[in-house]
């Protein structure tokens, strides 16, 4: 076990949660997803985050596990937002100029 699986899970989780928001569906897909898909993304995202927490707690116990989960979750959320920003910037630049 290492720090990589929980980080990847957290990244996947926040990516799914991002796709479950109206704004990102509009920006990334150009149309809203059906409510069932949105719900599935939300559940998958939450499940991935819980799995990351579970993996860390199983590995290091509750004390360290919670601390590490908090760090990975913050980092993953930041990375996902950063990726969304980069993508939106690239998209905004491409068609206009």
């Amino acid at each position, binding site marked *: 076990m290492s720090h990589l699986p929980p980080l990847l899970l957290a990244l996947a989780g926040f990516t799914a949660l991002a796709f479950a928001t109206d704004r990102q569906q509009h920006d990334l897909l150009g149309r809203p997803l059906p409510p069932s898909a949105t719900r599935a993304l939300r559940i998958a995202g939450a499940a991935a985050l819980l799995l990351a927490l579970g993996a860390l707690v199983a590995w290091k116990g509750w004390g360290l596990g919670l601390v590490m989960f908090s760090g990975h979750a913050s980092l993953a959320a930041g990375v996902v937002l950063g990726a969304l*920003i980069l993508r939106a910037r690239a998209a905004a630049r491409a068609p206009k100029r």
Partner: protein
Amino acid sequence: MGNPRVKTDRKPPPAGRPAAPGIRQSMSGLHTWVGLLLGWVLYAMFLTGTVAYFKDELSQWMRPELPHQTEVPDQALVAQRVADALVAIAPGSPQWSLRLPDARNNSVYAFWRTAAAPGQRGFGEASFDPATGRKVTSRETMGGDFFYRFHFQFHYMPVIWGRWIAGVAAMFMLVAIVSGVITHKKIFVDFFTFRWGKGQRSWLDAHNALSVFGLPFHAMITYSGLVTLMALYMPWGEQAAIRTPAERQQLTAELSAFIQPGKPSGETAPLASIEDMVRHAQERWGRDNVGRVTVTHAGDAAARVAVARGEAGRVSMSPQYMEFEGPTGRLLAVHEGVGAAAETRGVLYALHLGRFSDSVTRWLYFLVSLAGTAMVGTGLVMWTVKRRQKLADPERPHVGFRLVERLNIAGIAGLSIAMAAFLWANRLLPQGMADRASWEIHGFFIVWALTLAHAALRPARTAWIEQLWTAAALLALLPVLNAATTRRPLWHSLAEGDWVFAGTDLLCWGLAGLHAVLAIRTARHQPRLRPARKPDRDPMAGAALRKGEA
């Protein structure tokens, strides 16, 4: 951070709740002013505290004469070596204590109470070479401990004052966090929202993202920071409950592994083998996980030895130690638990310092704490961004605006310059100079004062750009300076696998890049924020804001 126009005009509060209309707006106002008033203090506390997560590594980098430690030396042997040295250096000392080398420390820091005249309390301190047990001969420096201590007690003032200021600032921070969460009602809806190039709206999005993503950390670090100094801020409970010396001793035992000296017997008796005592502790806690050895009245028949457990992998700073009889080495007691209240404090204390971390977790701490720094920074800048659009005459802003604007430049960009200058001073000040360690620190403050003067004299935008570039240059050239002035340039440390030196050099470049990007963006961005003809642009800015809302 709140923007009343955006936040409150949109959705009227539900009918039938007359008290509701004001709450978000008043919280927004509270957040704005509480955040601003001590914002620069908080920014400095956040940034120096962030760097302090690597204080041990930084201390190693600032003492390049100490060789790179490839593996942790046997702590039992080192403890004996340094104990022998201390017996010789501090005869008759009522108490001395040494911190053993571990994965992050390549020297042994020890301090001792001097056996001065009764009623006087004198201290001595030194760092020792684990391999020889002799005092290390490296340049005189406070190392990373300067940032660590500055972070909660500042400098050039009595320690207690500094800690009170830090406490008030932390209290403000706590208010800012709570009021900020209330103001920012759409935390989940806007979780992944960032609208680029929309001026104030973008600043707000950035500020929100930095705050929300790290919210568990920001809340924890602020609250636990207050807990670390709670005995200073709220001593009354302790004063009421702890009255006798015996009770005080019990309290100390619950809070730290520094055993307190009792009365010496007057009978001389040499210490038994410290090595054996540390071996005993190693069997219990692991080879590299002994933290500290404290001895009272070494050389006296009443001597006591405490061998404390290290901090790695344990989310609690509550003391765990084995207590031995000095002259015989007989194990007297193993202290491994404290009461619930003391343990609560121990856990919060540990969470704040993060010293239990493996290297990945330490980087997580560093990054999220850096986000917290940026949260404070964006909040401060936003105060001016938001008000610049409403200035009657942008060429002649009122005095409050000018003050905040200039303090922002020196408090944010200037602090980066000053911190880099501190590291430059470490490499450039001549060895053997009188008060060398103090002059490194004076250098930090002199440079910081110069950045304030610069910020006051130059036009604001130019000052930002010049200071950000200066910080970028100082940081980018630091590895070069290190290569020129020490025998441990980057290529050498990379080849040796010396990640303390290589990591510091590379981190400097990373931070230099960050400052360069900020400088470039400031240079490009300003015309939008400060239009030449204000009346033409204002409706557009408003339109952009409203559009960004949709």
